[in-house]
Structure formats: structure tokens, C-alpha cells
């Protein structure tokens, strides 16, 4: 059986079927924008309800040609930076907790109520009380992002470790008694598939969390707070542009993680039993 070798790396983008896909998307978007513009103009819908694409472009022009220090773009990147910190921290701590949970059912029972609470107490409501303890700075925000995203990570890691087939554990035990060696050669690789699959979800949740927490914490440089302010000041084109920018950032982040996942799972077979 001959397996078609896929073009990899940068050449991925120049494959014919991908170019066709990209062209189709661009065409679709252009048609969408034109229809949108026409409908708004025809029915005279006011700017404050739904802005036209030209309104959005006008706003973009104003925003970037006035060379202010903080634009919606810089604010989005600022929020993204916080999301990224939360993302990595959450994966790290979540994995640690997951490994701890897998060690014994008692530890699991002890930690479970707290983990469950991180899910059931909504993060936006928790923000003010946490801010009273930790202040209104970046620490609280990151802490909240981690709280928001940590539960699924811990659960998936715990289950992955508990599901390592027994024969592999027994095999490793015949080679060594050192717990660290078993950890390095068996547990760590088996964490790779669950982490890769949960990474995509955490990518989105961390960005959602950063926006959510910026509202009660009044983070001036964040895009969440900016959207809030512009919404209250009826600067609707600004709202739309901000939402579009942060959505694009989120999409790109998600796609990078997906790509990374595909790359690792096809090239290396870590943790696949």
C-alpha cells in the first residue's frame, strides 16, 4: 500500500487545494462584506445598532493614523499576553495537580471540592473578592484565568495517567525501582496526547477568561475593558473592530495550537498505546 506523502512545512501553504480554499474564503468574505454594506445602506440602519464595513474602516483609519500610544490592537495584544501567561501557567499547574490526583483516591477526594468550586463559582463573580485579597493588578487577573481553565486540564491528566495500560507500568517496574525514572519514561510521554488535545480548549478559554476578568477588575490596558467602555459610550464601530481583532487573534492562536498538535502526533508517537 502506498501512502501519499503530504507536503510538509512551509510548502503546506502552496499546495493547490489549500490555495483554492484560501481563494474561496477570500471570495466569500468579500461577497459578505459587500452584501452587508448594501443592506445597511439600503435600510438606513443607524450606526449605533449595526455599523457598515465602511464605518469600521473609517474607525480603523482614525485609530491607526492618529499614532496614539494605545490602539485597539495594542490593547488586544496586551490582553492576549495575559491570556498566554495564564495559558502556560494553567497547563503547568493543572498537570501538576492532575499527577497529584492520580496518586491516591484520598488526595483526589481532598482536592476535588476545591477544583469543583473553581468551576461552579463563576469567575466574574469571584473577581472582586479575589481582588480584595490580591489587589487589582495583573496577579489577580492571571490567578483568575488559571482558576477558570484549570479544572479540565487536571481531570484529563488524571484520567490519562490512570489509564496507562497496566502492562506498561509492570514493564517499567522490571527495569527500575527509581520513581523518577518511571516518571520520566512512562508518565511524562503519556501526558503528551491529553495535553495536546486539551491545549486547544485551554487556548480559547484563556482568552475568554482574560476578557471576562478585565471587566470587574477594570484593567485599563485590556481590550475587554475597552469594549466595555466603548459600548457604554456608544462607540459601536470601535466595539465591532475590537471584537473582530480579538477574535482573529484567538483564531490564529487556536490554529497554531492545532497545527502544533497535528505535527507532534504525526511525527512522534508519545504516549500512544
Amino acid at each position: 500500500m502506498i501512502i501519499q506523502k503530504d507536503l510538509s512545512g512551509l510548502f503546506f501553504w502552496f499546495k493547490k487545494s489549500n490555495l483554492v480554499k484560501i481563494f474561496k474564503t477570500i471570495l466569500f468574505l468579500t461577497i459578505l462584506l459587500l452584501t452587508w454594506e448594501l443592506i445597511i445602506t439600503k435600510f438606513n440602519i443607524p450606526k449605533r445598532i449595526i455599523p457598515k464595513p465602511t464605518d469600521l474602516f473609517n474607525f480603523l483609519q482614525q485609530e491607526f493614523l492618529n499614532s496614539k500610544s494605545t490602539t485597539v490592537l495594542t490593547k488586544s495584544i496586551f490582553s492576549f499576553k495575559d491570556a498566554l501567561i495564564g495559558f502556560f501557567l494553567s497547563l503547568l499547574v493543572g498537570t501538576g495537580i492532575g499527577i497529584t490526583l492520580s496518586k491516591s483516591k484520598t488526595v483526589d477526594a481532598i482536592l476535588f471540592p476545591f477544583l469543583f468550586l473553581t468551576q461552579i463559582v463563576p469567575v466574574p463573580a469571584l473577581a472582586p473578592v479575589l481582588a480584595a485579597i490580591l489587589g487589582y493588578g495583573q496577579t489577580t487577573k492571571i490567578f483568575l484565568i488559571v482558576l477558570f481553565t484549570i479544572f479540565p486540564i487536571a481531570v484529563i491528566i488524571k484520567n490519562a495517567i490512570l489509564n496507562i495500560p497496566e502492562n506498561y507500568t509492570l514493564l517499567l517496574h522490571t527495569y527500575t525501582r527509581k520513581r523518577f525514572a518511571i516518571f520520566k519514561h512512562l508518565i511524562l510521554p503519556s501526558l503528551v496526547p491529553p495535553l495536546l488535545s486539551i491545549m486547544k480548549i485551554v487556548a480559547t478559554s484563556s482568552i475568554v477568561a482574560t476578557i471576562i476578568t478585565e471587566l470587574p477588575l477594570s484593567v485599563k490596558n485590556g481590550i475587554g475593558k475597552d469594549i466595555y467602555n466603548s459600548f457604554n459610550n456608544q462607540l459601536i464601530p470601535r466595539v465591532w473592530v475590537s471584537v473582530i481583532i480579538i477574535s482573529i487573534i484567538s483564531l490564529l492562536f487556536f490554529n497554531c495550537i492545532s497545527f502544533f498538535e497535528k505535527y507532534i502526533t504525526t511525527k512522534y508517537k508519545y504516549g500512544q498505546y
Partner: protein
Amino acid sequence: MKQVIKKKYTYLISIITVIVFLFLWEISLNIFNISRAVLIKPTEILITAISEYDIILTELFYTAKEIILGWIIGNSLGFLVAIIIYQKQNIARNLVNTFVLINSVPLIALSAILGGIMGTNIDQKILIVSLIVFFPMLITALSQLTTIEDDHKDLLLTYSASQKDIFKKILLPKSLPFILNSIKVGVITAIFTAITAEFFGGYGGIGIFILSKKGLYNLPLVWASIFYIAIFGTIFYFSVEALQKKLTPWQKL
């Protein structure tokens, strides 16, 4: 029998841990002399919760409507759309990817956009909760309905089963655990979505309540609100889990 004892044992440990934690929390405030502006005692939270129950619960009731209605609509529509789409196998696969991409975007930001279009009334909140619950449900249901084990497919072909048979007897029961799990997770999503959506403005609800009172640094009231939200969320979540256990007795939860 052993498993039942183990389960009860873990519940006991969890409860004891929470009690110990609350106890330590209560005591440490006295020992370390922590200011009331930073952290308050659990007993004080409880007292506030009892004395202010009517205000808090009224607001919570408003939000609960947003949460529950949005959750019902989002999940039902997600499932229905999945049933409509799954039969066209070739398009369905590509659509799942599109929906995953849509879901990777912070849809919560749409609160502001929808708020501009329809105002910040309760319908807008229900709409946004439905939207955010809709996509994960659609993705789960659709991916489950478009996959079937080869062996199952072969067996049903030998029985000359119709598409309806395959759906009723194989696809639906097989997807049920995943769909119910998505519904359960949807409870959590619905709760934080409703509260965040309220931050953008509205006519009532516990989110607006917290944001306003917070300005006054009324920490006990915020804690009390959290207390009630947690109780509501826990009851809601575990009710869905109980339903899950009843409908899928063959799954180990």
C-alpha cells in the same frame, strides 16, 4: 459492595476537608489579624447571606432565568441542528471543523455587539447564553453522529437496516453519554456567560448586583452572593449529573 463503600468514603473525605478548610479560614482571620477589607470570616458570610437573602435571591432569580432558558434553548437547538445535518456525511465533516473554528473565538465578546443591536434586556442575555451553549453541543452531537464503528456498520448492513434503524438503535444510544456530558458542562458555561453578559449592562441580575455593590466595597454582600450562586450551580449541576446516571446506567461516571 466494595465500590459503594469506597464512594461513600471519598464523599466523607471531601466533606471533612471542606469543614476543616472553613474552620481554618475562620480561625486564621483571628490569629493573623487580617483586615475586614481583605477577607471576612465564613460565619460573617453566612450571617450576611441569611439577613440579605431576599435582595440577593431576587437578583439571582433574574439571572437564573437567563441561565436556564439560554441553556435549554442552546442545547436543544444544538442537538436539533446536529440531527438535521448529520445525514449529509460529506458536508457534515467539513461543517464540524467550521463550527470548531467558530467556537474557538471568544463568543462572550458578542455580548457587546448584541447589546448594541437589541439592547441589554433579558432576551439579549438569553440569546448570548444560547449561542455560547449551542456550539459545543452541536460539535459534540455532530461528531458523534457522524462516526460509527466499522463492525457495527457491517452487522447492521447484514440486517438490511434502514437509516432510521441505524440512528435509533446505534447512533443515538452511542452518542447519548457524550451529549449528556456536553449538557452538564453547559451548566457551568451558562452560569459564567450570563453573569459576564450582565456586566455589559442590563435590567437586573446578580452580575449587575455584584458590580454595583462592589463599587461600595461591600465585601460581605459579594461573598454572600457567591454563596448563593454556588448553591444554585451545585444543585443544577448535580441534578443534570443524576439525570445522566439515570439515562446512561451503563457508563461509569
